[in-house]
């Protein structure tokens, strides 16, 4: 039997790039940094590297924990480690914080070299393709010509898909989980309400709140509360909270009364306490802009015609943020191109967040697919 467990203590690293990166927004970052972590060993052929792409609020701390902060466990630790579905005994796993992030990579809270002050609202909006380009530069620096696989859920899955379009020679397998080929009007609407909550917070100061010594925590909190609702399912909320009320709650007022209110406020507070509002704006905009079929007149199959990767696509039955039907659009565009693809529609009560859960069948599928990925 294999050992099966956490990768254990890990360390975050940071890499500075001195050659500019040109962004879709038409501007170029002259000097920029990426925070990343790696787990496992890169083999001699450098053929066993797997890139893990994060979703809206994620980062490079994907697995393990920090020696000085053992409770800070990576966000996809249940999937990644020795003997786990993404097995660090076989693969060299790379987690990265995307450009524009707020966990160590260059982003809106980083100093703008032109002013010496934080970029704030002046930080360029970045796209999924920009992230792929930045991740490719990290791959270059790590000596990885081609990923054995790129994997991600939600916005992370979109990056995995974009990799196979933008740099088809550099990725052998893409695992696209709980993603969509583009956002619907409803998806964009949710994102815009979230953005409006932040943009209209008086503490936002047009994105330059750092220099005012404030943070738009009220807006960010609302944005997260709204987002969180869309990550859960109605069934799961009914089961977990139903109409339960707090024992100490008063009635006929506007305090915390129903358990779901308490839960959402807690989630909102927790998130607003550490996340950067400008990064949140930028990430939701990257989501809205994601539409790899757009350059091909909306024909996703045409956009994927030049891809060389093999694919694993998965969706979750109660995910209404990016429903199974959206994943099937990706699958059928791949099948039309006669690309190798497997697709699983996983029964789960956990809505969009199911991709982060430790579900036996889901993890068996990922493990089963990755076992056939040659290193």
């Amino acid at each position, binding site marked *: 039997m294999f050992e099966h467990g956490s990768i254990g203590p890990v360390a975050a690293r940071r890499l500075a790039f001195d050659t500019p990166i040109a962004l879709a927004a038409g501007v170029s970052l002259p000097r920029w940094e990426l925070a990343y972590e790696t787990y496992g060993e890169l083999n001699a052929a450098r053929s066993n590297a797997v890139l893990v792409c994060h979703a809206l609020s994620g980062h490079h701390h994907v697995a393990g924990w920090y020696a000085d902060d053992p409770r800070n466990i990576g966000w996809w630790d249940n999937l990644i480690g020795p003997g786990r579905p993404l097995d660090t005994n076989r693969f060299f796993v790379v987690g990265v914080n995307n450009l524009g992030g707020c966990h160590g990579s260059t982003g809106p809270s980083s100093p703008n070299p032109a002013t010496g002050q934080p970029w704030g609202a002046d930080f360029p909006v970045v796209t999924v393709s920009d992230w792929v380009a930045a991740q490719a530069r990290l791959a270059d620096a790590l000596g990885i010509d081609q990923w054995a696989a790129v994997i991600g859920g939600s916005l992370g899955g979109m990056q995995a898909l974009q990799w196979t379009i933008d740099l088809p020679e550099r990725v052998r397998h893409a695992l696209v989980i709980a993603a969509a080929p583009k956002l619907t009007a409803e998806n964009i609407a949710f994102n815009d309400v979230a953005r409006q909550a932040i943009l209209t917070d008086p503490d936002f100061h047009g994105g330059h709140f750092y220099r005012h010594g404030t943070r738009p925590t009220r807006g960010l909190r609302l944005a997260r509360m709204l987002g969180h609702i869309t990550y859960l399912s109605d069934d799961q909320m009914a089961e977990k909270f139903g109409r339960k009320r707090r024992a100490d709650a008063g009635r006929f007022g506007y305090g915390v009364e129903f358990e779901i209110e308490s839960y959402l406020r807690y989630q909102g507070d927790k998130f607003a306490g550490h996340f950067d509002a400008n990064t949140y704006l930028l990430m939701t905009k990257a989501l809205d802009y994601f539409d790899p079929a757009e350059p091909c007149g909306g024909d996703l199959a045409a956009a994927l015609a030049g891809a060389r990767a093999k694919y694993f696509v998965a969706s979750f039955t109660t995910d209404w943020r990016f429903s199974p039907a959206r994943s099937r659009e990706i699958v059928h565009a791949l099948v039309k191109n006669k690309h190798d693809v*497997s697709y*699983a529609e*996983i029964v789960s009560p956990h809505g969009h967040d199911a991709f982060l859960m430790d579900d036996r069948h889901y993890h068996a599928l990922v493990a089963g697919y990755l076992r056939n990925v040659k290193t």
Partner: protein
Amino acid sequence: MIHALKRPDYDVIASWVKPGETVLDLGCGEGELLQLLAARGVRGWGVELDPGHVLAAVENGVNVVQGDLDAGLAGFEDNSFDHVVLSRTLQTMRHTQQILAEMLRVGREAVVSFPNFAYWKNRMAIMNGHMPVSEDLPYQWYDTPNLRFFTMLDFEGLCAGMGIAIRDRRVLDERGAPVAEEHNFLGSLAVYRIGRGD
């Protein structure tokens, strides 16, 4: 790994598919046929509803798309496969005519195999007052996934009615050996190669 003898219809199907061609296998199970075909240079994709079978197919390294055949083949393009295969599954489906039409929309041609209800041992079982249980109809009446019981003559009648051309036919007995005569009486399993009629 692959026991071709256990599924003699696979050998028939494989003989109809040329290397380099593409196959869509409906109800592909754990992907045994697709593995057999892949070894012969055929590129294949499967459709399967059962989560356990989907997992096994993924583990077997074959392309599998989870989906319900009774919902049709929406999303699959017209004429996008050389062959669409439905092996030992037609009798479990609710929408018989719809799936046949869908197979011939998506595929240049189709292969359908099914247990022949008119096989003499089945007839004997009915004569003796029981629903048949055999190598090709291995279930009891109360646990069978089969919804429809039909014979070779019935199938051929449906094809004629739908304007479907029968291009080839192989009939096997209970041991998987070819049947040379009295097909609808001596045949336990029938395999048809069909196409759009002119």
